[in-house]
């Protein structure tokens, strides 16, 4: 047993309203640069829909992820090492600009410089690639809320597959359709196929927290990782000629604060925590024969942080006590393995993804309500989950390689929680038979409710800090606070003097105060003053 720690995320899809705040704040933080205009480390897709880049789930075409070999091992779907080296001179099996979109800006200058005339001046779109005037045909989120126009959603690879299998048509007429939002970041897989495909060995997994990063100095721009990643979450910076990807906001995680996408999430639907897993069992689990068993296999790889055997092995591997404590309090572990309400995205790619999702009950609830039923009653909900096969089958293709059983199981738990808590609200006491119907106790029901519905800040995010005794290893360095007083005081030479203070320091200080306040159950302190009044921040 080789115990390793992994920072993981769970997203509660029922709470996603598709506002794209996560995408926008992520972009402002990380990819608002030349060369990364089309790069969205975080994007929110409407499902059913084609996703971004379009139809990325069509692995027959894009060749991402792993496949099981006849001898019971796994190999990259796009080919072995020798084939990769021999065909390195072009890497055509991957999206082009048109599969993403051609980024543009507007000719705003015309608006202010146009001479007086009879017509209003117009800011025409200009390509950020060629600089020429262009016609906007699509973007990262062209089909938001099923707005892609006729025929767009039918091109969703999952819709096509379900259609081929069951001859059932998913209806896109407004009153018969269902939809939900799927925010996606890099999966920070336990068995990443991007990493395996990289000829330079530039992509690596951090031993401490499992975050998958691209060494920008070692990347030589061979672009094999883009083919390798089945989620298409590695992007090519077309200006620097290097691969870039979501890095789980590692400078923030190291300071013990959540990622930008989580911090700014309006629906508070993201949970971040630690998972302990057995690194020795990953490859074997990834080679599980039946894709439908991969979900269970991945659960097996995750270790119980309360098991003394596991703790002993973890300590032997040098995992610190505060990390083990965080693993025990991990909301992510609770949702994934304890309550079993979170599911992995496309386990059939065999990469062992580490961003999991609580599937949405809302398509079922919405359909029930539209048909005039009481969408909160346990009996109605249980019956509907069984009857409304199309949403369930669709979710199963996303989360369990097509096996509806785990999805039904999760949806029933969510339905039971909804009904149980309604009883609590209306009658002051829940009906224990509802909890028992899904194999849970009333107490567990209320704990789950607290975790996913109340979702307090310090319960959503349990992130142990990187160790200060190893602070010289931190990738964000240059904190110059070696004068008296706290970082919020003026420096020795007045405000704004000395070496630049990393932005995360300010965030960390205010975050710590807010956290302490939350723990003391008080109102959060006022935010620090903005702009010049904050010393050291320019």
């Amino acid at each position, binding site marked *: 047993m080789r115990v390793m720690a992994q920072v993981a995320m769970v997203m509660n899809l029922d709470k996603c309203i598709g506002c794209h705040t996560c995408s926008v704040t992520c972009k402002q933080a990380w990819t608002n*640069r*030349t*060369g990364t205009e089309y790069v969205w480390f975080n994007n929110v897709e409407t499902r059913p829909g084609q996703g971004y880049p379009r139809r990325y789930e069509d692995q027959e075409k894009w060749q991402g992820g792993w496949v099981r070999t006849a001898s019971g091992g796994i190999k990259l779907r796009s080919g072995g*090492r*020798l084939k*990769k*080296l021999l*065909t*390195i*001179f*072009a*890497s*055509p099996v*991957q*999206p*082009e*600009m048109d599969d993403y979109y051609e980024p543009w800006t507007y000719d705003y200058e015309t608006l202010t410089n146009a001479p007086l005339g009879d017509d209003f001046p117009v800011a025409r779109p200009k*390509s950020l*690639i*060629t*600089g*020429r005037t262009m016609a906007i045909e699509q973007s990262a989120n062209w089909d938001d809320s099923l707005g892609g126009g006729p025929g767009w959603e039918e091109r969703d690879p999952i819709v096509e597959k379900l259609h081929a299998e069951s001859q059932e048509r998913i209806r896109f007429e407004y009153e018969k359709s269902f939809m939900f939002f799927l925010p996606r970041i890099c999966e920070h897989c336990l*068995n*990443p196929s991007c*990493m*395996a495909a*990289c*000829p*330079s*060995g530039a*992509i*690596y*997994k*951090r*031993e*401490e927290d499992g975050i998958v990063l691209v060494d*920008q*100095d*070692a*990347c*030589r*721009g*061979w*672009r094999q990782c883009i083919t390798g990643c089945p989620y298409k979450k590695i992007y*090519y910076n*077309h*200006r*620097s*000629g*290097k691969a870039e990807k979501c890095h789980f906001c590692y400078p923030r995680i190291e300071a013990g604060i959540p990622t930008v996408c989580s911090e700014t999430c309006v629906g508070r639907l993201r949970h971040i925590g630690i998972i302990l897993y057995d690194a020795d069992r*990953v490859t074997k689990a990834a080679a599980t024969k039946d894709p439908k068993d991969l979900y269970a296999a991945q659960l097996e790889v995750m270790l119980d942080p309360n098991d003394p055997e596991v703790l002993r092995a973890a300590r032997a591997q040098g995992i610190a006590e505060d990390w083990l404590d965080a693993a025990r309090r991990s909301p992510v572990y609770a949702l994934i393995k304890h309550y079993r309400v979170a599911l992995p995205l496309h386990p059939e790619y065999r990469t062992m993804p580490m961003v999991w999702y609580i599937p949405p009950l809302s398509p079922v609830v919405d359909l029930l309500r539209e048909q005039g039923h009481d969408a909160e009653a346990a009996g109605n909900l249980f019956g509907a989950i069984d009857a409304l096969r199309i949403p369930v089958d669709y979710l199963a293709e996303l989360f369990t390689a097509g096996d509806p059983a785990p999805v039904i199981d999760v949806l029933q738990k969510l339905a039971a929680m909804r009904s149980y808590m309604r009883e609590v609200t209306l009658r002051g006491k829940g009906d224990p038979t509802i909890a028992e119907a899904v194999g849970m106790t009333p107490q567990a029901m209320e704990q789950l409710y607290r975790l996913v519905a109340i979702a307090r800040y310090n319960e959503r995010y349990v992130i142990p800090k*990187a160790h200060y005794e*190893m602070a*010289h*290893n*931190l*990738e964000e360095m240059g904190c110059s606070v070696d004068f008296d007083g706290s970082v919020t005081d003026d420096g020795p030479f007045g405000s704004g003097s000395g070496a630049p203070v990393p932005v995360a320091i300010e965030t960390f200080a205010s975050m710590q105060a807010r956290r302490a306040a939350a723990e003391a159950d008080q109102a959060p302190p006022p935010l620090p003053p903005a702009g010049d009044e904050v010393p050291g921040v320019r």
Partner: protein
Amino acid sequence: MSVFLWGVLPYLTLLLLIGGLWYRRRFDQFGWTSRSSQIYEKSILKIASPLFHYALFAVLGGHLVGLLIPKEWTYRVGISQHTYHLMALVVGGIAGVVCVLALFALIIRRRTNPSVFAATTWNDKGMYVVLTAALVLGLVATFFGGERPNGEEVNYRDTVSVWFRSLFTFKPNIAAMEAATLPFKIHVVVGLLLFCILPLTRLVHAFAAPVQYLFRPYIVYRSRGTRPVQGSSWQTVGQKRTR
């Protein structure tokens, strides 16, 4: 002049090549990339680029055989000068022509596709001139460098190859190179120029050939503490300044 061209320039080239590569390695790892333009256009690239590279390997192999193996050795194994010349002409000629055609296809792509053209730097343009010149002049030398204008036959294995091998003993045989025909002389000078500029252009990706991929484990774990520490100048060689 002869002493500079055939006695000094080769060593200067080697110095610039090694020095340039050291500089890139030490200060500009971030700029060390093939700078692929595939994301803008792939239908021409996916044919022309592998064709160009494979033909280039054949050309490279031909150069090594022609320059390093003395003609006495091939005589001894029973290959006459006529057979050798025919083989070199056919194999080398085909490889060279394919290489040049693929290069032209890539240059046409680069010029006609607005996205690719917009991503082309002056560094790239200069590099393409030298690269094209070296390849075309090589073809000219292959087909027309075998005899002087007066009809006298000159075997490059008696001239260029002898000079090239003498470079390794640090006693450059300048006279041998002086005896070569003009097409070969020009080709050699342009070829040396190509190697001079190589580390400062996108061609440097040739020295990143990832052979280690065959041997490394699929999953790479790295501790936060083992980040290779080296100087890194952010503004990179051969690239457009970011806006």
